[in-house]
């Protein structure tokens, strides 16, 4: 049930009446958490009381009208209203008298009550999550219209398999000592590709680290991934960042930075930039359940709401932050309810259902751009991977649990089953895809390993736009040292 909040203020000799209308609208099987609070409502009324301008906000619910929320100068505190004299529109009888007493605080009028009631910390029922396919790959709701074309669906599926294969082999490569570090996205492939398919190539993506699927979708090759991980000279990053910290300006994917949640305020800044340029695209920022504890997360959501920034915040709630389970990360009902705290419409989706993710992200993107406001999506999933190659998650969770999620709830299996029911996929194609992906990945690793490392000069370039003399000096000193003691330095650095 979604709520429509509408308020109207009417002057009548200085008295004000508020009316609240609640209606229920259903939106298939999804639930939209309304951003609603009286404090977000404002009316700006001139001193003589004649003119009244209305500012109202209502939650989004598949309607085509848009809410306009304009910035304005701060309201002046007005006289406290103690009672209502005339009340033409009131048809609620006596109880309206209670509700209509309003106090005018900066930020808007608030009706008061004599009943002391604490808002509960959480509601009894958890926010439901939007889902389209069941575990066996059948559409749950029969009135679901055709969501994706065959091409898009198969591209999503093969992307998921490629990512899965790439992760397997790169992880092995790290175990064999060929890579220093790697981080897999097992179990979260649907979030990767469901969202990637829903975005346009102009949407700027700021990821955390478990979203390489976005890059794969946009054209980053497996070879590119390997080059970045090996730190060779072919990579976009010139070998400067640790593995899996990809970035490509051409593909509108911002280079990853290790500290968590730092990308969230930056996302707001980029959306601000898009607003100034009035572009028809949005910014998408990914983060995990653990990152939502960082200060940057809260500030970014607040900023985005205040600035009407077209950012889609996507939280991958995979249950674990290294060894910290979500029960120890926060006390709220996940991340989705936090949106309401900042005035942001939010939704929860089954992150292992690629079609659901696709649908939600596509809708969220439309709202964000059309209404120029942020949206929060919480995609529920499970981190089948260890946190990274530096982690052995069997130390803090049971192997059975991991196996269960890996097999029973696998997003790849689910989508494949759906594709098979539609007759778009078969076992032969499955075999072909796996063989092809495996070959691609293996070749990429072998090739990347053979390639040259970045030259010594690249240690000093790009610190500034041009090489300053201090760094030239430091480079000279280093080169001289290497020349004098060649046996103490690695041989494979191109000079």
């Amino acid at each position: 049930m979604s709520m429509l909040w509408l308020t109207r203020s009417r002057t009548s000799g200085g008295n004000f009446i508020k009316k609240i209308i609640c209606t229920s609208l259903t939106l298939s099987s999804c639930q939209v958490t309304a951003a609603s609070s009286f404090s977000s409502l404002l009316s700006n009324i001139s001193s003589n009381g004649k003119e009244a301008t209305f500012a109202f906000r209502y939650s989004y619910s598949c309607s085509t009208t848009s809410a306009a929320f304009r910035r304005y100068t701060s309201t002046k505190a007005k006289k406290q209203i103690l009672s209502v004299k005339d009340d033409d529109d009131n048809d609620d009888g006596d109880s309206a008298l209670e509700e209509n007493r309003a106090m005018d605080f900066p930020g808007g009028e608030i009706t008061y009550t004599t009943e002391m009631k604490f808002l509960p910390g959480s509601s009894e029922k958890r926010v439901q999550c939007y889902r389209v396919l069941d575990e066996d790959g059948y559409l749950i709701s029969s009135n679901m219209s055709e969501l994706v074309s065959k091409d898009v669906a198969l591209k999503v599926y093969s992307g998921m398999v490629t990512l899965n294969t790439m992760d397997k082999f790169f992880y092995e490569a790290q175990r064999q000592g060929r890579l220093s570090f790697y981080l897999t996205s097992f179990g979260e492939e649907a979030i990767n590709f469901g969202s990637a398919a829903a975005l346009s190539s102009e949407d700027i993506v700021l990821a955390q680290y478990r979203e390489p699927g976005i890059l794969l979708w946009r054209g980053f090759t497996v070879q590119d991934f390997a080059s970045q991980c090996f730190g060779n000279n072919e990579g976009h990053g010139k070998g400067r960042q640790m593995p899996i910290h990809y970035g490509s300006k051409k593909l509108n994917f911002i280079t990853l930075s290790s500290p968590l949640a730092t990308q969230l305020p930056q996302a707001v800044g980029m959306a601000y930039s898009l607003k100034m340029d009035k572009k028809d695209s949005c910014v998408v920022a990914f983060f995990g359940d653990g990152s939502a504890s960082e200060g940057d997360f809260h500030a970014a959501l607040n900023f985005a709401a205040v600035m009407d920034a077209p950012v889609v915040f996507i939280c991958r709630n995979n249950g674990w932050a290294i060894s910290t389970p979500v029960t120890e990360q926060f006390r709220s009902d996940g991340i989705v309810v936090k949106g309401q705290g900042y005035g942001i419409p939010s939704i929860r989706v089954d992150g292992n259902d690629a079609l659901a993710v696709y649908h939600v992200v596509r809708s969220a993107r439309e709202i964000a751009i059309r209404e120029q406001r942020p949206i929060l999506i919480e995609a529920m999933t499970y981190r089948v991977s260890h946190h990274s190659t530096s982690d052995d998650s069997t130390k803090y969770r049971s192997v059975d649990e991991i196996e269960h999620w890996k097999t029973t709830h696998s997003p790849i299996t689910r989508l494949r089953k759906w594709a098979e029911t539609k007759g778009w996929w078969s076992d032969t194609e499955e075999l072909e895809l796996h063989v092809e992906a495996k070959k691609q990945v293996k070749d990429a690793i072998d090739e990347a390993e053979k390639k040259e490392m970045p030259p010594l000069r690249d240690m000093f370039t790009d610190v500034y736009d041009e090489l300053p003399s201090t760094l030239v000096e430091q480079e000279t000193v280093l080169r001289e040292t290497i020349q004098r003691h060649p046996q103490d330095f690695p041989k494979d650095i191109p000079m």
Partner: protein
Amino acid sequence: MASSIIQRIGAATSFDTNNNYFHRRSFSGRQSSFVVVRSDGANITTRLKPNGGRTHHLVTNAVATKPHTSAASKPGHEILLFDALREGLEEEMDRDPRVCIMGEDVGHYGGSYKVTKGLAPKYGDLRVLDTPIAENAFTGMGIGAAMTGLRPIIEGMNMGFLLLAFNQISNNCGMLHYTSGGQFKIPVVIRGPGGVGRQLGAEHSQRLESYFQSIPGIQMVACSTPYNAKGLMKAAIRSDNPVILFEHVLLYNLKETIPDEEYVLNLEEAEMVRPGQHVTILTYSRMRYHVMQAAKTLVNKGYDPEVIDIRSLKPFDLHTIGNSVKKTHRVLIVEECMRTGGIGASLTAAINENFHDYLDAPIVCLSSQDVPTPYAGTLEEWTVVQPPQIVAAVEQLCQ
């Protein structure tokens, strides 16, 4: 070794970027001409250093004084430092629509020191953006906006608050151009008032230049006069690197006549305040005025100090400094930073390394003590280097 010497001499020219304007003006009376070198699009920029640089009358105290009528016949306009910064901002915002400002209370309030006054009504709420109170967040926002093509100027209401933004400044602002392989550039300007003011308490009297100086990838400059404030502001905005511009709380009301024509200063250059022969005094920001006050006393006592306002805190202008050291052979550094890990400490190390052979005496560095800035007026006054200490140090150095 020859190659490295040539590199150092060439230090000045290696910074000049393609779009660098360069303007030097001399009030000395010997030369009344001024040079504007415009190198828009051209690959070659030339640097001219008129003899003696810009000689200015001695400033006898730290607050604004009525300017003497100088020998220069060129008209200019009198302006206060905060207004000079604002003028620089306004000119750059007119010139480039991508320039925008963000910070707390910068819009309708005009900034806590009125540096952004009048800009919000002129350019709108979006280009002069009031942000909620979260320094890390709006600094991060500025960095994100810069990566997508804008040129934001991020204001910290007080430099000390930017400690909250350290994560974004260090891990992202300074690094992303490098770690992305040069794909994303971050042309932000981070500015704000800092330094020890008048009884503002310890948390409002921070010298952030000491903490930031290690961050690779950023440049730091400190302004001290209306002339260099405007010039450095414009240069910082035009630079493609992230620049931190340090202003001082006590200097906002300094008055000076600045040129009417447009001028942009070089970010990596130091300013020769008073040429001399006996000792090189290196300083920046507010301490420049304490040094000049001490210089008056020293001149009366028969000394001839050479005073250089280093302006560029990262990287140091070792060219100007080096030439001075080679001439005087004695160095005194006067700074407001604390003793440990301040700008003076780095500068001492840099001069010792590079010009050791030219020094006749160890470098003396006068700095604040390693204490939080006390509130009581008398204590606060003595936490900051005062002119009598400078005079005493010079006398000691020149024995």
